[in-house]
């Protein structure tokens, strides 16, 4: 294998979602980039997915440069290193009555951690997702809880609430919607959102980021919904609209890498989860996609 550009051992040893399973076709080879390393993948004649390091010069060898593969949540995952942990659990994915949909894969010119923070952020709803996920003057981010679970090594934000116009498909007015956020992977996050049809259960939206470089990424978005009334196309279009609103904001954040120095930016209480996330990354010693705090 050629020398990797990414030298962050933690980032190298993580699992990354690369493509939805049904887009990997027998006999068709596709290329992409992971942590600045070109890779290629295909589905061989036995139906098995194969991925390998693809050198621009030599082309790479599917046999000798083979990468580990896992199939999970509708995507195939790989790693440039040797992951010591399995892919994090999303138990809801296996519930029989849910619809699991691949919403989209997007390219964004920003570091992966900036996108994770955006995903955890409610304060921007009235401004960026105006009249969809929020609307002025309902701008307050109420108190919520954040914890870092040692045992699961993930960040959990609970009791999050944000006022959403037309929150219920049936109700015409707005109301507070409940959210729970998990960050189980430095570059992935899972969000749970209360659902008008079943007060006991929540819809799940997950983002799995494939950093293509320190300052660019592809993100794969999974939905696991209780929704029975909308078709896949309109559900996808909705998520793509939301994402299309975030993209220009994300691409105008400066610096593109997430600064971990506490004095780089100004947090407010609404950013509790983001602060926990920055500390968690710092404690792990992640360097890829961030500007580490000076020691």
């Amino acid at each position, binding site marked *: 294998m050629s020398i990797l550009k990414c030298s962050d051992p933690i980032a190298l040893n993580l699992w990354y979602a690369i493509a939805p399973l049904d887009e990997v076709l027998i006999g068709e080879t596709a290329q992409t980039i992971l942590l600045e390393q070109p890779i290629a993948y295909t589905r061989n004649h036995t139906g098995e997915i194969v991925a390998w390091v693809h050198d621009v010069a030599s082309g790479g060898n599917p046999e000798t440069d083979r990468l580990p593969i896992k199939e999970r949540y509708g995507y195939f995952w790989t790693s440039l290193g040797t992951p010591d942990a399995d892919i994090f659990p999303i138990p809801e994915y296996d519930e029989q009555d849910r619809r699991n949909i691949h919403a989209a894969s997007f390219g964004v010119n920003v570091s992966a951690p900036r996108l994770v923070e955006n995903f955890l952020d409610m304060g921007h709803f009235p401004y960026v997702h105006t009249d969809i996920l929020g609307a*002025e003057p309902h701008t307050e981010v109420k108190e919520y809880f954040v914890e870092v679970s040692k045992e699961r090594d993930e960040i959990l934000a609970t009791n999050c609430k944000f006022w959403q116009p037309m929150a219920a498909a049936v109700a015409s007015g707005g109301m507070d919607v409940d959210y729970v956020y998990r960050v189980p992977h430095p570059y992935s996050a899972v969000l749970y959102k209360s659902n008008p049809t079943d007060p006991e259960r929540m819809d799940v939206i997950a983002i799995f980021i494939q950093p293509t470089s320190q300052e660019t990424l592809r993100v794969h978005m999974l939905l696991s919904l209780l929704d029975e009334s909308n078709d896949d196309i309109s559900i996808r279009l909705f998520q793509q609209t939301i994402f299309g609103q975030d993209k220009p*904001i994300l691409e*105008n954040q400066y610096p593109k890498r997430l600064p971990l120095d506490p004095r780089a*930016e*100004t947090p407010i*209480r609404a950013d509790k989860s983001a602060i926990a996330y920055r500390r968690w990354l710092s404690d792990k010693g992640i360097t890829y996609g961030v500007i580490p705090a000076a020691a």
Partner: protein
Amino acid sequence: MTTDLQSNWYPIASSSDLPKRHVYQAQLLGREFAVWRADDGYVNVWENRCLHRGVRLSIGINNGTELRCQYHGWRYANRTAGCTYIPAHPADAPARTICNNTYPAQEAYGLVWAGELAVGELPAIDGFESATVLRPVPIMAPQKMVNQALLGYAWDDTCESAENSDGSVTITATDGSAVRVFVQPVDSNHSVARALYNRKVAGEERIALLKRHSWLMQELRDRTETQAARQETPAPYEPVIAKVSEDLVDIPAISVDGRKADLRVQVARKEMTADGIASLRLEAIKDQLPTFQPGAHIDVHLPNGLVRQYSVTNGPGETDHYTIGVKREPDSRGGSVAIHDTVGEGDVLAISAPRNNFPLRRDAVHTIFIAGGIGVTPLIAMARALNAQGLEFEFHYFVQSDDHVAFKRELSEFEGALNIHKGQSPKETGETLTEVLANPGYARHVYICGPGPMLEATRQIAADKGWADEAVHFEYFKNTTELDDSNSFEIDLARSAMTLTVPAGKSILDVLRENGINMSSSCEQGACGTCRCGVIEGDVIHQDVYLSDGEKAEGRSIMTCVSRAASNRLILDI
């Protein structure tokens, strides 16, 4: 490191790049600027970065007085670049000095000039007092190389060029026409040539001039870029982004000062109701607003961290909003100025539920209202309540002039009961009041609200005329008493079975809160009556202006925010 480069002035934009309400993105020595003109004409040159999460402010919204970030709606003020509003926490003040970096800027000769560390005034550019700004030309080459190339710039055979001490190049032709070119170092390998022509020309002539120089400059650009491409590209500048101040690192805690601001209202309308007095119509964001009583006030938590009390002027049944009147008082600590200058229609404010420490008796046969200036607000609500019930009253309003009469529409409801006394001297006011208060009697009540001296005078006249203490009701806006908190004493809390020490420098209210006892308060200066507490035993030094003299003499209650024990210990009914 400071370099000469940083201390120079450079043109970074043309004046025409800053049309009304636009935000222009400029760059100098690798540093991006958000450049915007406020409606008052002031040109702001700021770091192009929101202090919150680093979003470019050049994609923000210029509303004429403030720049609003697109991501979370933080707002930064014209000139100071201080953050005035954080929508995610409408009850909190963005008080801590959240202030963006600003850079020296000047607008002259049709250009906007800035310098990272420029000092003093922009030096005069002689001979270009009445100039035409030529089209700026970007060139992918270092500033020095462009300057060099400009020495060969010419539009006819008579042109001669010379470098000026500021590094710019002037090219002069024998017919007296001249062009002076300033090279803006956008980055180490990226420049913009911005030129002035020494005559003001218009119309066809201007277009011909611009075309000609665009053409010549384009040629210069091509040559210079070819030359630059042959040499090694210098490393881009790496502007250092200043860190935010240390005190901004920690997330501010929820305010625990017991002044509860549990309501969120939106400013639905803001207008000037009289000279220096704004009226604000506050509407609920959701649900119903709590009931108010005539005479009630609300605490308004202002974006600058201050908490201010304002009386509700509503009439009975007007339950979908609160309307308050705010007088601009430039000398005060900035509460009213903040409302006048930074709170706008559509903003969310955190307020307390209305509290009534100035209750209205509705069992009087006749009620006299005496208002001075902005003191009219609670009395308007009271008189409207009596009016609606058909109860008899008279309303006296003392103002400087007609321009100072606030809430004219509401006042017009009082028809014949309204007496506006304009421009009276203190002596004349005394005479009028002596007349107004001539007849005390059974079930007759007086309500007074106005500035301290007028209030004192009115109370005195009422006492002289034989009005009983219980019939004279008043509300001070503020306590001007000199407060003394130098003694220390103990308080016994009868119902909570606790003994606490109140040291010098702290109020009873402070000590109660420190010990987890929740006591509500509002003005915290002995004027509003919210922190009143019963006294079971002990003598009180009253320093408030809320209790009447009779109540003070009785010694049965205390304003815990300002008053103290005269004895070693007080037993309080809490």
